[in-house]
């Protein structure tokens, strides 16, 4: 929102174009009984190339809906949503998605799982193994080097999620979308994964849009933390986070700015969920 001025500068200036631009987008679901469920209402969001943006908001406020729209898994009911200047019409190769559950395919090894996106995009999906080198390299980066021939059930939850992140990165997309990627992990593993993700992000400089329930996680990871209202989801406030990188839990979580931000965000969330009862 702070970069709201950018979006009016015209589509010809490609260099200054935001990577993701949402203008007044809303999403209305129809339930089986025909009732309208307004999941998000009039969201404006501009995300620049290389940004790490975290979204927090109460449960059911439409965070996943927003992410699915950006991923091209759903279409907006109204408003305009563009990715690299072009309206989002469906899933794009420029987007990698990480779900709350690792969603690895249990019948494939880690190597095959992570290589799947490449196999699907290739001319001949029967010929697996061309990109094994690339996949192995990526697995090494997230510390799964020795596990490429294991099956998902032989991996812990954290390792599975790391493999899922590899899979999202393997086509080298511009954008990484993550929907509560560490929600199913215990607190300790989660912290380690946060540090890991920061490292991967710093190395690859992807644009990341991450949804989380954890204010601590959002502030720790994000360049910006976007706070959403209860359903129908709107953006309440967009907090820039200027904490130095690389961040680590020991220092960052004690930093005055970190504490200040988490307090503000919590207050805002509490206040808005109080409103809900109006």
């Amino acid at each position: 929102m702070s970069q709201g001025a950018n979006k009016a500068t015209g589509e010809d200036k490609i260099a200054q174009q935001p990577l993701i631009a949402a203008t007044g987008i809303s999403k209305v679901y129809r339930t089986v009984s025909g009732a309208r469920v307004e999941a998000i209402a009039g969201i404006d969001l501009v995300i620049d190339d290389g940004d790490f943006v975290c979204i927090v908001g109460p449960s059911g406020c439409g965070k996943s809906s927003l992410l699915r729209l950006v991923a091209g898994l759903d279409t907006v009911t109204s408003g305009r949503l563009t990715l690299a200047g072009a309206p989002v019409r469906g899933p794009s190769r420029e987007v990698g998605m990480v779900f709350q559950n690792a969603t690895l395919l249990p019948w494939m090894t880690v190597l095959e799982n992570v290589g799947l996106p490449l196999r699907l995009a290739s001319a001949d999906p029967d010929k697996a193994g061309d990109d094994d080198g690339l996949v192995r390299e990526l697995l090494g980066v997230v510390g799964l080097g020795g596990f490429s021939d294991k099956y998902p059930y032989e991996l812990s939850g954290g390792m599975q999620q790391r493999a899922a992140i590899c899979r999202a990165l393997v086509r080298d997309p511009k954008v990484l979308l993550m929907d509560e990627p560490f929600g199913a992990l215990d607190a300790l593993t989660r912290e380690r994964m946060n540090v890991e993700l920061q490292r991967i992000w710093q190395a690859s400089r992807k644009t990341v849009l991450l949804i989380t329930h954890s204010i601590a996680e959002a502030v720790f990871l994000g360049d910006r933390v976007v706070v959403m209202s209860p359903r129908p989801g709107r953006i309440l406030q967009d907090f820039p986070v200027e904490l130095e990188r690389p961040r680590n839990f020991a220092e960052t979580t004690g930093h005055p700015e970190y504490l200040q931000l988490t307090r503000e965000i919590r207050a805002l969330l509490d206040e808005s969920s109080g409103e809900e009862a109006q």
Partner: protein
Amino acid sequence: MSAGKAEELPLAPEVEPALGGMRIAAGVGRMALTLASLVALLALWWLCVTWFKLPPYILPSPLRVANALWSGLAVPLDSQVGFYLPLASTLVNSAIGFVIGAVLGIALGSLMAEFRPIETIVMPYAFALQALPKVAIAPLIVIWCGFGDGSKITMAALLAFFPLMVNTFTGIRTTDPERLALMRALAATRLETYRFVKLPSAAPYIFAGLDMGMVYALLGTLVAEFLGAQSGIGVAITQAQAVSDVASVFAALVLLGLIGIGLHLTISAVEHRVIHWAGRHKN
């Protein structure tokens, strides 16, 4: 979780032999129990026959059955008497019918799960036919296909077809929606989604269907044989029945039972290898 598990992993190989030993011990225990119950059953059977003085054309003693079994098996493989030729005929026809029925069942089940119009059109007939005891169609099949192998294969295929169609359909339709969302996010084609996600998801159902379909195929072949074929174990049974050689009927049943168990174990072993991941915790 990750930390703990990662450090535990190297321990796994040490733990396994002990676990393996326990598993073998448990297996031996179960086998002993099965064997004991079999002996008890045979003893009870023998007691019934001697106590109630049952004539052999009603219920032959286990010894007579064993005798009949032996005389049917202690012949050259290509002998005109004995069990081998009829058994081979029955098994070959069942196998051919089973493969045809299974392939068609998996194909139609897949098409119905993938394309709504096909489901809408086919479903009512499928259910109607499924409700019908298909053995009742056998006389009709014999009229159409004659007394030869055609009828037997057709019956076997027909009976094997339904469990595979229904199970494939159900298996594909119950695919985890999150996996489908994944494939959509990856911009996979419909065929890729079917091949990499839906079909493997349905595999446990398909194996259950194969297990059932195999027994049904054997049943289908036997029914066709009962209706006046020239060869097959079903013919051997009716011929023995005609001369009140009940011991031979029993011997044939024992053979069929053993073959059924053998086929079931084969499918289980293949299933275990192919879908080793099934039933393990996900995510």
